[in-house]
C-alpha cells in the first residue's frame, strides 16, 4: 500500500516546475510538502492523484488508492450536508457517513444546505468527504484553509485515526497538524532551465 514516486518531473501550463522528485510514503506515514507559493506543491499533488500525466518518472501506487482534496471542496450548494456526503460515499462505493459526520462535528448540520454553511463548515464537510472515500492515501492541498483552531484539532484527530488504520497522507501545508510528519521541501526539486525536465519547449529553444 505504499506510494513510491521516482524521478518525477511535472509541468504547470506546459512549463516544467519540478524535476526528479523522489520519495516513498509508507502506511502510517505523513509527508508534508513545503515550499513558497508557486513552487509546484499543487502540481505535484495533482500528478500524484493522477489528474495530470507526469513529464517524466513514475508514480507507483495501488490502483485507485489516492483520494485528492484541493482548494475547492466539490460541494453542491443546493444539497444538504448529508446529501453531499452520501453522494460521494455512493460514488466511491462505501456506505455509512455517520463516522465522517462525527469526526468533523457536523451532526448538528446534517440537514443544512451547503449554501448556508460558513467557509470553515464547508471546509470541514470537504474534509469529511475524505473519510467516506475509504482510500488509503490522502493527497491534500492546504486542508486547513479557513479552519479555526478547534477544527484543525478535529482534522488532526481524523488524520491520526486514518494513520492508525494503515493510511498515509501527502499534505501541502504550512501549519503544524499535531502529528509526527516528515517534511519534503519541494524547492530542492525546482526545475532548472538547463535540464528542462524533458519538457518539449526545449526542442524549440
Amino acid at each position: 500500500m505504499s506510494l513510491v514516486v521516482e524521478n518525477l518531473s511535472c509541468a504547470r501550463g506546459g512549463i516544467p516546475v519540478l524535476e526528479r522528485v523522489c520519495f516513498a510514503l509508507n502506511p502510517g506515514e505523513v509527508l508534508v510538502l513545503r515550499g513558497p507559493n508557486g513552487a509546484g506543491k499543487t502540481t505535484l499533488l495533482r500528478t500524484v492523484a493522477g489528474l495530470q500525466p507526469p513529464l517524466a518518472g513514475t508514480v507507483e501506487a495501488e490502483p485507485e488508492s489516492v483520494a485528492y482534496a484541493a482548494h475547492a471542496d466539490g460541494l453542491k450548494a443546493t444539497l444538504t450536508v448529508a446529501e453531499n456526503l452520501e453522494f460521494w460515499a455512493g460514488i466511491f462505493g462505501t456506505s455509512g457517513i455517520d463516522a465522517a459526520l462525527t469526526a468533523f462535528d457536523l451532526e448538528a448540520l446534517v440537514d443544512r444546505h451547503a449554501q448556508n454553511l460558513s467557509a470553515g463548515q464547508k471546509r470541514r464537510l470537504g474534509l469529511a468527504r475524505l473519510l467516506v472515500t475509504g482510500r488509503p492515501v490522502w493527497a491534500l492541498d492546504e486542508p486547513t484553509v479557513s479552519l479555526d483552531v478547534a477544527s484543525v484539532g478535529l482534522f488532526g484527530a481524523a488524520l491520526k485515526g486514518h494513520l492508525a488504520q494503515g493510511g498515509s497522507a501527502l499534505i501541502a501545508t504550512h501549519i503544524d497538524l499535531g502529528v509526527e510528519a516528515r517534511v519534503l521541501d519541494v524547492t530542492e526539486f525546482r526545475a532548472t532551465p538547463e535540464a528542462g525536465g524533458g519538457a518539449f519547449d526545449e526542442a524549440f529553444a
Partner: protein
Amino acid sequence: MIRLFLRDLKLAIRSGGGFGLGLAFFLIVTVLVPFGVGPESGRLAAIAPGILWLGALLACLLSLDRIFALDYEDGSLDLLATAPIPLEGVAAVKAAAHWVTTGLPLTLAAPALGVLLNLPGPAYGWLVVSLAVGTPALSVIGAFGAALTVGLKRGGLLLSLLVLPLYVPTLIFGAETVRRGAEGLDVTTPLLLMAGITLGAVALLPFAAAQALRINLR
C-alpha cells in the same frame, strides 16, 4: 453512476433553471415566429416542422454549458476524475441527465406548441417520435462541446459556435421526418438515418468527451 445521475436530476430540480428555462425559451421562440412571418395559417403550417425542431435545438443549446462548467468550478469534476467511476461514464451520465431535464420536457411540450403553429394533424405523432429519437443526440453532442470548452472563461459563446455545425445532420433529418409526416409521406428513411446518428453519437462521443475532459483537467 446512478447516484451521479440522480444527483444531477436533483440539482436541476432544486436550482430551478433545469426544466423550466429550456421550455420557456422554446415557448418564446415559437410565439415569436408568427410575429415575424405573419399570422396566415397556411404559411405557418408549412414552416411549423422546421420551426419546432429549430426551437427545440436552440432550447437544448441554452443549457449545455452547465453540463460540466458547474462541476468544474466547484472542484467536483476533479474529484469525479479521481473517483472509481470512469470519466467516460461521467460524460455519458451527465449527457443523459441533460437529456432528461431538457430534451424530454421539450419532446413532451412540442405538440402543444405545434397547435400554435397550425401543425397539420398527422405530423404530431412524428414530431414527438422524431424529437424523442433526435434530442439524445443533441445532448451527447452538446456534452462533447461542453467538455471541450469547460476550462474557458467565455466558453458559452464558443460552445455554440462549435456545437451548431455538429447539429446540422440531426436537424435536417429531424425536420424532414416531421415535414414528411405532415404531408402524409413515408418517414422511415429520415427517421432511421436520424436514429443511426443518435446511436452512433451516444456510443462514441462519451469517449471523445472524456478525453477532452482529461485534457482540460490536467
